[in-house]
């Protein structure tokens, strides 16, 4: 357990819900701003048109009578303006001499010139929107521009803008709720394979380590296939443990029975010379048994490591040197044959050393001198002696778990270990009997 603080684990549904909420809030803010902007623009355009219509209708009602302007404003002008029912109204008709012909002097003149000018202005203590429209007269008795100014306070505009924004928000809210609902359902359906895998595992027999055969979406498959790999490794280990126990029982039974029989003989023997002889035999048997045990443990170790140890980059020349150190300790002469260049493979140094050591031990024990230990590209550690190699029956069984029978037993197990290590590294054990000697080689694929 680490002391570091960890994030509390949040369920996937909650994560999706939080993400959705963030998206909706952000999107909502953007849409709200857009809706307010759009509402303001739409309201302004709508009511500006109303103002312009009213101003146009006033301008159209201006006539020249006896050299003076006469404004016979239609009632509809005011009905038009009253479409903004709660807004105050000002209008003003200004002659070329800037004198007010009719209407309220309080209506401000436009800040700029132009035929049609919209502008904001005050209306008492309220804000208002004004339009100024110019109509030009060219009569015999009257000529010049006449400006019509119509203004209105902003209540209806504000109300319309707010209304548009509110409707937009309502639509957004409904859409958001629908999206959230669909997201919830989608996440629920996407996560359904997980409880299915869980249920399949729960239903299993405890000893069943076969791969789960479920059709799942590819995202879940990324989790399922390592799970299956893991179970396969577990299966191999369980199997090798079972084999180890079986092998041990089988291999140990015969030597232990022999030792027991010899010990019985020794107990019954009266003659001291014969007794010493029997005791020496018991000692030999016990030493052989001890070697057998070493090999079996080595093999179990190799099997275990092949599944558990991380692979490192290894130079096979180092492996050969290590094997020489351990395997040929009793002063026997072994010729070393190493290349100048490193031969690099990916693997577990201890297993490879054990395998090489076993090949060397076999050659020293069963082969004929001279014995050569060497490395060659690509990826081979070989041991060569001048003998003929093991009997063909042993060769045929090399690599099996155990080999029954006398002196050859140790040699078989050593080959089995070497074979197993080679396979664990994705390679193989090559045994080459020939007229000029026997060669056993570990062939390991080189690291790319």
């Amino acid at each position, binding site marked *: 357990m680490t002391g570091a603080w960890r994030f509390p684990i949040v369920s996937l549904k909650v994560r999706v819900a939080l993400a959705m909420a963030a998206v909706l809030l952000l999107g909502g803010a953007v849409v709200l701003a857009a809706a307010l902007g759009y509402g303001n623009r739409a309201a302004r355009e709508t009511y500006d048109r109303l103002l312009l219509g009213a101003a146009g209708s006033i301008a159209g009602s201006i006539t020249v009578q006896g050299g003076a302007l006469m404004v016979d404003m239609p009632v509809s002008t*005011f009905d038009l303006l*009253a479409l903004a*029912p709660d807004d*105050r*109204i*000002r209008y003003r008709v200004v002659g070329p001499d800037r004198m007010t012909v*009719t209407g309220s002097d309080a209506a401000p003149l436009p800040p700029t010139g132009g035929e049609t000018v919209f502008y904001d202005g005050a209306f008492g203590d309220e804000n208002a929107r004004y339009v100024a429209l110019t109509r030009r007269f060219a009569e015999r008795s009257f000529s010049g521009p006449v400006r019509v100014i119509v203004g209105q306070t902003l*209540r209806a505009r504000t109300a319309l803008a707010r209304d548009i924004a509110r409707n937009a928000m309502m639509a957004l809210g409904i859409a958001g709720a629908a999206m959230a609902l669909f997201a919830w359902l989608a996440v629920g359906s996407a996560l359904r394979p997980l409880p299915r895998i869980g249920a399949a595992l729960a239903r299993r027999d405890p000893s069943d380590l076969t791969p789960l055969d479920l059709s799942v979406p590819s995202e879940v498959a990324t989790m399922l296939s390592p799970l299956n790999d893991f179970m396969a490794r577990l299966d191999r280990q369980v199997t090798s443990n079972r084999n180890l126990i079986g092998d041990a029982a089988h291999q140990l039974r015969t030597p232990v029975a022999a030792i027991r029989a010899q010990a019985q003989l020794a107990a019954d023997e009266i003659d001291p010379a014969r007794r010493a002889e029997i005791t020496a035999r018991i000692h030999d048997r016990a030493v052989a048994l001890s070697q057998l045990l070493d090999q079996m443990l080595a093999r179990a170790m190799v099997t275990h490591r092949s599944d558990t140890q991380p692979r490192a980059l290894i130079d096979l020349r180092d492996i050969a040197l290590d094997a020489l150190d351990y395997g040929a300790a009793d002063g026997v002469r072994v010729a070393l044959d190493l290349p100048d260049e490193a031969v690099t493979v990916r693997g577990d140094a201890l297993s490879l050393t054990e395998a090489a050591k076993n090949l060397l031990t076999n050659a020293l024990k069963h082969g004929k001198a001279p014995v050569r230990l060497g490395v060659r590209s690509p990826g081979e550690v070989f041991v060569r002696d001048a003998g003929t190699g093991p009997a063909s029956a042993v060769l045929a069984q090399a690599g099996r778990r155990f080999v029954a029978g006398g002196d050859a037993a140790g040699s078989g197990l050593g080959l089995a270990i070497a074979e197993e290590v080679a396979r664990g590294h994705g390679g193989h054990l090559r045994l080459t009997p020939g007229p000029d000697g026997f060669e056993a080689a570990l062939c390991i694929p080189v690291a790319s």
Partner: protein
Amino acid sequence: MMRALLLALLLPVPGQAQELTQHFGTGQVQTIVFRSTTDLSVLAPVIESFIATRPNVTITYEQWGSNALYSLTAQECAAGQAGADLVLSSAVHQMVELVNEGCARPWRSSLTAALPDALRWRDELWGVTDEPAVMVYNRDLVPPGDIPRTRFDLLDLLRPSDSPYHGRIATYDIEESGLGYLLAFADSVQATTFGGLMESFGRSGAVATCCSAEIIDAVAQGEYLIAYNVLGSYALARAAQDTRLGVVAPSDYTLVLSRAAMLPRGSAGGGADLLDFLLSPEGRRELERALLIVPLDGGDGTALETPEATQTIRRPIELSPALLILLDTHKRALFRARWRDSFPGR
């Protein structure tokens, strides 16, 4: 006295001062100044009913002519003062103008909210009464077959060149009566009959004169046979006392005037209390008793002769900025010129 009051009320002469003041109640805590164009004797029972449940309140009632009330309120508004707490006027176009110029303060209550849109503007102006514009005729001199039910009937009566009604029909003179101008203008907007009526009035020598009381009395005495566009509240009050008078709500359409009330900007809260009282069921009962609310569908005991389908003939004069056009100088001059063409006699 009553007649003199009515006369004075409907004679809005510019520059005319306050006509009458009366205090109601003896409350020391709050004084409400209530200015109105309505006859004191008509409104007094309503005010007394308000005062009855409010011992702390004193109401100072001031009766004004409509033009004087308008100019006073406008002046006070320009000066940033509030001389009154509640203003009630029959010249609703002037009230709309005052609100348009920002002279009112807003007020919102469940009672103001219950008013129809036509009787409420900006939450600053409210239609309080309900008074039809009617035709008054002399029961003794107008045979039942001649009683005009519509404006078309009136046109038909005037059509024959030897019609006995020539010179015997009266209506308000719009140059002297603000209310007459308002009603005539509403007529001109409402229907095309107005043009024919004006032309017919002019040809038959109809009389444009001043003031409800004068016109109604003249009808009662037989000087005029029929009076057109008289405010129903006055006509019904007189008809209740004088059996010679008949009152008809025209069945082509009947204009309905609601006197408009506003709270001057900067005024105290008492005005709103009084306003809410006038809009409350209790206040409306009092107003109905004072004949300031005349239901067209025939309240019991009223003398108003109404047609069957009353809802379709009602034409309320809406409180809306559209009334501002009545105050336009050119528009008014043109309307008056047209009027004068029909009544050249004056």
